């Protein structure tokens, strides 16, 4: 199948890819994890893992997508060999499963933006009750449908008119909004205490291995590295387009936005109460939503004595959050759509199937927080396997050949040295094994029946669901090979 649609410019590609990386994880998860892991002590390993996990995998995704011109399934088969098509299938499945519940999260952000604009958000002082009333009803299903509809329409319109045009607007607006809120939050009284906490390293935390593992996890989850999403957008980059410099822009750009979000949240939280702040900010709340949907609305309501000003800032914050979520949801929908396209479906038919499936299969997560938490756990940890599969594919292709031909080709603006081969060959597999082992083993500390596949968050449910997917993919791999490569060769 000939590739006939491309991002019109480098900036279109970069803004779209930044849209993948910048999501709700940069805003709500990053600040909570920083608070739980000793503030500045967390930032040091977090920066280190940007270089040894995120950047190498973002470079890999750009290079694989540009070379293979196929979605994750076909691309991994083309790089690693056709018999490993099931590995690409696993990468595509994990991101598709994430799409089902990420659309629910996107729906929550849209709902809170609407509530802030209408003033309804400040109609109460009990924001926990407000969240519980919203999340226990059927509203999350309606807003999940709204999110899926927005994402589906964008992907339906294609790469240039849909994905590129929309992301240019979403990402640039998101950055402008965050910068405005950044200035406001830094002008709040006592904001400097938040900055001090955010950046002060504490030695006891720095020596704790859990802080390092959390820093690696945050890099694996919030940069989008190893998910197959950047690979999918790279399919539509022009042949003359560079790989390593674009990857650097995405990795550094994503983490820059995390830092802006962190400064905003810590300055705001500490400007009101540093004692209460630490208790509140480290509370996960239902489905890890405590900080964003319960504590921040309360803070925004006290930002100034003028309710209108408070509503404007709350609206801007939730608009930024919704834009971050929508831009990531679009890429998740595109990944699944591209997989269908590779199997011979026309884009419009494929996106309608994906949109319908995404809505239907996301409903359980929209109405039941335990299902949501289970899916977030199983496929969140599954992403580490996706990253490892990508490194494995490069090893099968030949790491040096991959580096010299696919990364450092004629079109590359900067060259990647031999350090890259070392990271892919040794550091990525070691990090993946340690991280996977740590998460699965530590689940026994909060669940005595760690083996029980029907519990929400433990090793058993992960191994059970991953096994089903892997068995089905391996069993069907011959059929997939035939269907995919007969069309694309």
């Amino acid at each position, binding site marked *: 199948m000939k590739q006939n649609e491309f991002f019109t410019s*480098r900036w279109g590609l*970069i803004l779209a890819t930044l849209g993948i990386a910048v999501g709700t994880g940069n805003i709500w998860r990053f600040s909570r994890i920083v608070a739980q892991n000793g503030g*500045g002590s967390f*930032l*040091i390993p977090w*920066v280190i893992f*940007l270089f040894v996990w995120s950047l190498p995998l973002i470079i890999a995704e750009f290079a694989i997508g540009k070379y293979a011109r196929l979605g994750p399934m076909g691309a991994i088969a083309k790089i690693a060999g056709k018999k490993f098509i099931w590995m690409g299938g696993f990468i595509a499945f994990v991101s598709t499963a994430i799409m089902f519940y990420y659309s629910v999260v996107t729906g929550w952000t849209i709902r809170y933006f609407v509530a802030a604009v209408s003033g309804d958000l400040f109609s109460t002082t009990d924001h926990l009750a407000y969240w519980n009333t919203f999340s226990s009803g059927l509203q999350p299903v309606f807003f999940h449908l709204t999110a899926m509809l927005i994402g589906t329409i964008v992907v339906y319109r294609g790469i240039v008119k849909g994905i590129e045009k929309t992301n240019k607007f979403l990402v640039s607006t998101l950055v402008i909004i965050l910068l405005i809120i950044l200035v406001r939050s830094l002008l709040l009284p006592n904001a400097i205490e938040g*900055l*001090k906490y*955010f*950046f*002060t*390293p504490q030695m006891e935390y720095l020596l704790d291995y859990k802080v390092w593992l959390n820093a690696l996890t945050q890099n694996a989850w919030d940069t989008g590295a190893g998910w197959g999403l950047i690979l999918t957008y790279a399919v539509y980059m022009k042949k003359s387009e*560079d790989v390593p*410099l*674009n990857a*650097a*822009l995405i*990795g*550094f*750009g994503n*983490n*820059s936005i995390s*830092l802006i979000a962190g400064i905003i949240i810590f300055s705001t939280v500490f400007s009101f109460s540093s004692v209460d702040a630490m208790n509140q900010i480290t509370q996960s709340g239902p489905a890890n939503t405590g900080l964003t949907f319960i504590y921040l609305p309360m803070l925004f309501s006290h930002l100034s004595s003028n309710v209108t000003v408070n509503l404007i800032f709350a609206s801007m914050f939730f608009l930024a959050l919704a834009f971050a979520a929508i831009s990531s949801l679009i890429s998740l929908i595109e990944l699944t759509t591209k997989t269908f396209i590779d199997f011979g479906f026309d884009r419009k038919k494929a996106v309608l199937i994906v949109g319908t499936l995404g809505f239907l299969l996301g409903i359980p997560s929209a109405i039941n927080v335990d299902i949501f938490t289970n899916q977030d756990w199983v496929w969140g940890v599954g992403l580490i396997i996706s990253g490892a599969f990508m490194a494995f594919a490069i090893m099968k292709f030949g790491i040096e050949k991959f580096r010299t031909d696919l990364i450092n080709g004629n079109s590359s*603006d*900067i060259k990647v040295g031999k350090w890259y081969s070392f990271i892919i060959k040794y550091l990525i597999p070691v990090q993946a094994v340690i991280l996977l082992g740590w998460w699965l083993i530590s689940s026994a500390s909060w669940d005595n029946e760690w083996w029980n596949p029907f519990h929400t968050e433990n090793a058993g449910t992960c191994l059970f669901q991953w096994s089903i997917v892997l068995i089905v993919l391996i069993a069907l791999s011959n059929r997939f090979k035939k269907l995919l490569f007969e069309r694309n060769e």
Partner: protein
Amino acid sequence: MNNLWIYTMMLVLTIVWGGFFTALTIAIRREKGKANSE
């Protein structure tokens, strides 16, 4: 030790924001170069 947070902030922001703006500057120069050569 009281100013440790300032040094950490400078280090982190220099690496992350510095990395982003350096990459952006190189990309802008390359794009301008390409436009001029066409």
